[in-house]
Every structure is written in structure tokens, then in C-alpha cells.
């Protein structure tokens, strides 16, 4: 199938305006005749539900959490970008667009990125009017900081809880629509399959996590805003329940999965301390504004950090990248940490970290200033490690954090299944091969508040007058039976190991071979190991308890099963992409200095994979990328 991105013609800066004018509209009185399912109540889902309901659509919102406010978006710390140029430091829509395309290592769709930069300014206005308590200057105007290597200050924030505040804003707008009766909220309800009829999305099958009841829901359109798949690594900064099931089930029903190997490994997380570790905690990237990253020059260093003299410290980022220093983009910072740790310079009891040192900043600005900036992060660090970062350097190491890959969508955010949309981290969208800090919140809210509510009309308008497919249609019956079979099967396996065990083992394979550095033999090994482990899983997993009450092992069983299939596809995608770009680093493709080397001639495309059944590898489809506005260059942060 030829992938049609439906990018409008015309000059870049006018495409979105033109498109909004050209697409089909549903008139206000007719909107109430349409029913839309939104799965997910994170930033993307809550903002979409609220806005669609305000426009008049009937929305059913689903989340597996016990409250919409618990979506993983709540955990975002650092901030949200917007091209407001309030600091008068030369920012503009064009600069944010340019930085995002470059930061994504020229693997994103220019037109989408430009639209994102355009609507970024509206997001801040929207959030402020909802009462999001952004940080302010003394004069009462909004404060900004520079974040994640940006050379302008365009990041808005609410202490270290930006995601929480933006999500509460969107959640509250959605609850207002629940109050109005325009949104029907289904909490603790997990989507376990997508239902299609004649190739079009017509509904979903869900399981009530409290009673185990399987229910069918039909609508004119389905939106997946179900987040990313960073937990395929087992250890990640994501919340424990984040998973790929909704997106993966849609993939199995015909939605192409794009660039699955583009994953972001965040440079500043607390290193694992033991086998029992269940997740890794992110230390906000803003710490790199003041902290200096180093390791001892000697591999056999035994002294404490403070007693290692300056000359024996290797400030590797400052030395290698004098222009950006500790503020190089995430992929570069992470890869360099891996290089020094692999070379034996790691610090901490397991020698699995690097130092992030605030001693100079404290000397320069005083302890109070540093406490003012990072107090809550320092407290969090101390709570977890038992060490005081005011007196000893933090230890950090990269961890799985964000996934740029996801369901392929066109300019309207529609997947390859008509009527099925994907928003937020669940789509592959705007970040190319590497996401810039503070851009995920922006994208989730852009999709939900400002893009999807308009573009969805294009596929709805022709359906005016038709009812959704009834839930007693055979397509629903069939999908229900499939879901029930799978649950019954899990409970019947009666093997010897928990889903947790298998998830951890899968994570090790993925981290080892599809992590920060990848090569052919490792990827081939990963494919065969994952397949073998998946087969073992279906023979040997042990799920206790029943289907008729809360059963987190049973929930997990399905999620881990889908992670296996996704992990395999990640390896295939990484193997196929014989170039390095952004977070995807193929050891075979690097410059003499060890930097990522792209191959624009052969890989300047999106890889979108089509499901062919469990025993046949997916088929790759290409969306060629054209760079009209931002000239392709080798990224350099030296």
C-alpha cells in the first residue's frame, strides 16, 4: 500500500491554515449525531476528549487507571516548550520548527513539525486560562527556562511538576464535560482489542478490571491516546502500567507501526541498584544546566568523588563538545555515558553510573540558589539512594524514557485503518529519531486540543446519518470471543514463572541489543532470543487468581505478551535501518569520531510495518521524507 501522508500543498507556513479550510467540516448541529471513543486520559486523551465534547461530539473516554488524573503524563517534570519568544531571545515558530526537525535528526515529517510549532503558542494560553499555575517572574509574567540543549529559553514550567499541572488542567476540562453529560467516563476499563468492519474502525472490546466483565463499545471513530511503549525495556522511567497493548492490538488489526526502533534513552536517571529494581527514576534534565558530568580518568579509582583531584577527572561532554558541553541532546549524552561506563570508568558500587556534580554550582551560586532551583529533585534523589547530593555528586545513568516510534498516522493523525486515530506518544508523529526535552507535553496537547478535534471531521462528515455498527454485529461477537479465549488461555497455562519474570528477561534482551548501541549480530540474536522466550512464555507463564475480580497478574500477562511481539519488531526495524540517526545508533554506521552517521540516500524515510500474522515477519512500507525547509546536515554539537 502506498502511504499517503496527506500533507497539504503550499508554502510550509501556510499549510495548516489552508488545510483547516480545505477539510470537511461537520456543522455544529450535526456534531451531536456522532459518537467518538477516546482511549486514554493522559495529556493527549484528556485534552482531546474535553475539546471534542466542547465542540458537541458525544465522547466515551476510557482509562485503565482508577482516575483519569493518574495517566503517566502526571509524572513529567521539566516543562513544555512553546515558541512564545517572551524572553525576546530570538525564538520563533520557525526556530522551534527548525530545532525540532534537526533534533529529530531529519527523520520527521516537516509539515507536522511546523504545525506543532505553530500551535505551541496556543497551548500555553489555553493552559494558563485553565488555571495551570506556571512559574512566574516577580512582575507576574510567565517565567521560562532553557531546557534540553535549546539555545533559547522557551520552556514553561510549574515547579518540577509540569506534567502534573498540565494534566490536571486537561483532566478538569474533561471532568467539566463529564458533568455536562458530553463525556462518558469509563475508568478501570482496559481496551483489549480494536474492532473493525469492512476495514474501518468501528469500536473496541474492553475488560472491566474490577469485575472481569468483557464489554463492547461502538462509535463512528476511535482515538488511541494510550501512551508509549518504553516499558518494553522492563526498567524504564515510565509508570509500571504503561504498555503497548492498545496500539499493538490495533497494529494486529491492520494499523501500520512506524519506526518502532526509535526509542529515547534519557541520560539522567538514577542507576539500578539491584536485581529487584522495578523501575528507574528520572532526574530532570534541567539538572544538566548546573551539574557537571564526569568520571574518574582511572578505571581503578577507589577514592571518593570529592577527593579526586580536578586533573584526574574526565569531564567527557565538556571536553568532546565544547560548544554544548553538558547540554548536548539526550541521545548524545546517553551514548557518551555508555561509552565511558563500558570502558570501565563507571562509578558507584556496581560501577554503573557517572557523576553529576553540583559542587562548582554551589560554590558559584550558593547552596540556597541551588536548593531553590532543584530542591525537590535533590530530596527525591536522597530518598531513593540515601545519599545527600549537596555533599556528594549524584550518580546517574541512561534509562529508557520515551518512544518516538508508534502507530503511523497521516497529517490528520489517522492511522492506516480508516476511522482510527492516534494521538500523543502513541503515534510516531513529530519527533523523528530523537525527541527534544519538553516537546512531548507540547505534542500531546497540540494533538488533543488543536489538531485532532478539527481533522477528525474529515472522516466523520461522510458518515452523517449512519449509526455506529451495533455491538451485536458479528464483528463484535468475534472480537469478544478472541479476547475471552486469550484470557482463558492465560489462566489455563499453569506454568512455573510469573509474567514479571518474563518481562524482566525480555527487558534484558531488549536493553542489551536494541538499546543505546545496536549492531547486526546483536539484533539477529535478539530476534531469535525474543522468539524463543515468547514461545516459552506461552507454555510456562503462571497466572493465579481468577478473571472475575481485580487481578493485576492477569492484566500484566496480556501486556507482556504484546511486548514480546513489539520487541521483535523493534529488532527487525533496527536491523533494517542500516544507518545511525538520533536514538538509533548502528555501530556499523558512525563517523571517525564515533558520532551517528546518517545515510540520507537510503534511509530518508519512515518505516511503517504491516502485520502479517504471528509467524510471518511484518512487511515494510516506506513514507519518503522530503526536506524543503530545513537543509539536511550532519548534526554537530561540538
Amino acid at each position: 500500500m502506498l502511504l499517503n501522508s496527506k500533507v497539504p500543498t503550499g508554502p510550509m507556513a501556510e499549510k495548516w491554515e489552508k488545510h483547516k479550510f480545505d477539510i470537511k467540516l461537520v456543522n455544529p448541529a450535526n456534531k451531536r449525531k456522532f459518537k467518538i471513543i477516546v482511549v486514554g486520559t493522559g495529556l493527549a486523551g484528556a485534552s482531546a476528549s474535553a475539546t471534542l465534547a466542547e465542540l458537541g461530539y458525544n465522547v466515551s473516554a476510557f482509562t485503565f487507571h482508577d482516575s483519569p488524573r493518574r495517566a503517566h503524563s502526571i509524572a513529567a517534570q521539566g516543562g513544555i516548550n512553546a515558541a512564545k519568544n517572551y524572553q525576546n531571545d530570538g525564538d520563533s515558530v520557525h526556530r522551534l520548527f527548525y530545532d525540532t526537525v534537526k533534533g529529530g535528526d531529519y527523520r520527521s515529517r516537516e509539515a507536522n513539525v511546523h504545525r506543532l510549532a505553530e500551535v505551541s503558542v496556543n497551548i500555553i494560553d489555553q493552559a494558563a486560562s485553565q488555571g495551570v499555575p506556571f512559574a512566574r517572574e516577580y512582575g507576574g509574567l510567565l517565567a521560562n527556562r532553557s531546557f534540553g540543549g535549546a539555545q533559547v529559553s522557551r520552556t514553561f514550567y510549574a515547579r518540577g511538576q509540569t506534567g502534573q499541572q498540565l494534566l490536571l488542567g486537561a483532566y478538569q476540562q474533561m471532568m467539566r464535560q463529564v458533568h455536562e453529560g458530553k463525556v462518558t467516563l469509563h475508568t478501570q476499563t482496559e481496551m483489549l482489542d480494536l474492532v473493525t468492519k469492512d476495514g474501518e474502525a468501528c469500536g473496541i472490546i474492553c475488560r472491566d478490571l474490577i469485575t472481569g466483565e468483557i464489554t463492547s463499545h461502538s462509535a463512528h471513530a476511535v482515538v488511541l491516546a494510550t501512551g508509549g511503549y518504553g516499558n518494553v525495556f522492563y526498567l524504564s522511567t515510565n509508570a509500571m502500567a504503561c504498555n503497548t497493548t492498545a496500539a499493538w492490538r490495533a497494529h494486529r488489526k491492520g494499523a501500520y507501526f512506524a519506526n518502532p526502533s526509535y526509542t529515547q534513552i534519557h541520560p539522567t536517571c538514577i542507576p539500578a541498584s539491584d536485581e529487584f529494581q522495578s523501575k528507574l527514576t528520572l532526574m530532570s534534565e534541567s539538572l544538566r544546566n548546573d551539574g557537571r558530568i564526569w568520571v574518574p580518568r582511572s578505571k581503578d579509582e577507589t577514592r571518593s568523588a570529592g577527593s579526586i583531584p580536578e586533573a584526574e577527572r574526565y569531564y567527557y561532554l565538556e571536553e568532546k563538545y565544547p560548544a554544548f558541553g553538558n547540554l548536548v541532546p539526550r541521545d548524545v549524552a546517553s551514548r557518551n555515558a555508555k561509552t565511558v561506563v563500558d570502558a570501565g570508568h563507571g562509578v558507584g558500587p556496581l560501577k554503573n553510573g557517572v557523576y553529576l556534580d553540583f559542587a562548582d554550582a554551589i560554590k558559584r551560586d550558593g547552596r540556597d540558589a541551588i536548593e531553590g532551583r532543584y530542591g525537590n529533585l535533590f530530596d527525591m534523589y536522597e530518598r531513593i539512594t540515601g545519599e545527600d547530593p549537596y555533599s556528594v555528586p549524584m550518580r546517574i545513568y541512561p534509562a529508557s524514557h520515551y518512544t518516538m516510534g508508534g502507530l503511523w498516522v497521516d497529517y490528520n493523525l489517522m492511522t492506516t485503518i480508516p476511522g482510527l486515530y492516534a494521538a500523543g506518544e502513541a503515534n510516531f508523529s513529530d519527533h523523528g529519531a530523537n525527541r527534544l526535552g519538553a516537546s512531548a507535553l507540547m505534542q500531546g496537547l497540540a494533538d488533543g486540543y488543536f489538531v485532532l478535534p478539527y481533522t477528525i471531521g474529515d472522516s466523520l462528515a461522510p458518515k452523517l446519518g449512519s449509526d455506529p455498527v451495533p455491538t451485536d454485529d458479528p464483528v463484535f461477537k468475534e472480537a469478544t470471543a478472541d479476547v475471552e479465549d486469550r484470557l482463558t488461555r492465560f489462566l489455563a497455562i499453569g506454568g512455573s514463572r510469573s509474567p514479571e519474570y518474563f518481562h524482566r528477561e525480555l527487558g534484558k534482551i531488549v536493553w542489551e541489543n536494541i538499546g543505546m548501541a545496536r549492531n547486526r549480530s546483536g539484533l539477529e540474536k535478539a530476534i531469535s532470543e525474543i522468539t524463543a522466550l515468547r514461545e516459552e512464555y506461552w507454555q510456562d507463564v503462571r497466572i493465579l487468581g481468577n478473571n472475575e475480580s481485580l487481578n493485576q497478574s492477569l492484566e500484566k500477562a496480556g501486556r507482556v505478551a504484546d511486548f514480546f511481539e513489539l520487541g521483535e519488531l523493534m529488532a527487525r526495524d533496527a536491523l533494517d535501518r542500516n544507518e545511525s540517526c538520533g536514538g538509533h545508533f548502528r555501530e556499523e554506521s558512525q563517523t571517525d569520531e564515533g558520532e551517528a552517521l546518517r545515510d540520507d540516500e537510503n534511509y530518508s524515510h519512515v518505516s511503517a510495518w504491516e502485520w502479517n500474522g504471528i509467524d510471518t515477519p511484518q512487511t515494510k512500507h516506506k513514507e519518503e521524507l522530503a526536506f524543503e525547509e530545513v537543509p539536511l546536515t550532519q548534526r554537530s554539537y561540538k
Partner: protein
Amino acid sequence: MSQTLNLTLKIWRQEGPNAKGSFESYQANNIPDDASFLEMLDIVNESLIENNQVPIEFPHDCREGICGTCGVMINGRAHGQEIGTATCQLHMRKFNDGDTIVIEPWRAAAFPVVKDLVVDRSPLDKIVEAGGYITAPTGSAPDANEMPIPKDVAESSMDAAACIGCGACVAACPNSAGQLFTSAKLWHLNSLPQGQAERYKRTEEMVETMEQYFGSCTNHGECKEACPKEISLDFIAEMNKDYMKSKVKNRKKAGQK
């Protein structure tokens, strides 16, 4: 360097909302003191599964003290003994080898037990639904800097907005009152210029919804002690003032003048 602990756990097991529950004892051995409290429960669950026993259901998700999902009574205290710490952020180095730890679900009439340590906290969402928002339809907002907000006003609003909605305040309260949660949401919105138009309507509707589900506040202050975000009791006073004003002058009906 990491040490290990041997512990006795007394954990509330209850099969479902209508089942009768009881305490069961478990031995948790060789727990690394670097583990978090929830990782300790993970280890216990893994060994239960190994022995073909149904694992303990406990609420959790982000494990970094922000989503508000976790929360159990630990030795009779909501989220345990550490001040300003959610259950997921509590680490085993705060316990001693040989300790007995009693673990129960939140206890409150408004939060019925779903299973084991998991309760239903949906009444908190009902309070927000009743009015915990500023009516700001998408697309209608003026430029954000057109309404300057003094820094200390924004900070004070943020202090209240920091609530994670875990319900520890309710669980800790002898009356199972919902005042700390409700007042935090009210102050977040009522203290901001954008929140003024709906201030009194919001206050009445949220307070009255709260009263449908939760007990009444008799100023014990246990809620604040249990709150992982140390939300201030002052917000309760502010809520009461606004509610009184609203009622006495019947501002809601008089167009909120």
C-alpha cells in the same frame, strides 16, 4: 552498602468488595534495604506466586510519588511514618531487621475495599466533576501574558495544586473527612484571577458534593500529617470562609457579586 532485612508482615487480604477480609502473616526475608516499600511487596508477591499462592493486590503505578495511585496504612499510619512521603517513596532502610509491619488498605466508608489493599476512590473524582475547574473552552484563551499573576499568588496556588489525590487525608482522618483534598483543589483555582468568575459557585458545589460522600471535619489535623505533599490546613480555613460568604450572601444566586 546494601544490607538485608527479615520482616514479619501482617497484611489485610480480602477477596472482593463483599467478601470478609482478615489479616494474614507473611515472612519477608532477605529484603535489601535499598528496596522501596513496594519493591518489598513485589518480592513477597514473587515468592507467593512461586508457591502457588495468589499474590497480594496493592495499588501502585508511577512509583515516584506523583500519580497518587499508591497508598496503604503502614502500622496504622497512612503512607507510613515518614513525613511528606508517599508509600512508593518509602524505602526499606527506614525499617529495622526483625520488624513486624502491619499493612492495611485505606479505611474509610467512602473508599470501599475492591480487593486486598486496593480501594475505590472514585468519590474524589466526583468532587472535581462538581466544579473543580475553570470554564475555559479550547481556543477561547487570550495571550497568557495578558493576565499577569503576582509570583506569590501563583506559588500559593501551586502549593495547593500539588495535591496528588491519593486519599491519604481521608484515610488518616478519624471522621474520614474529605476537607483537605477539596480545599486544596478550591484554593488552587479560587486563588487565581482566572478562577474568580466561578469562585462561589465552585465552592458551594464542591463542598456539597464532598458532604455527600465524606464525614465532617473536626479539626484533628491528622490529614496534614499523612499528606505526602504536606498540603496546608490553611486551605481548609479558606474553603470554610468562601463557603460561608457564599451561603450568607447567597452569592451563587445573586450572580456572584
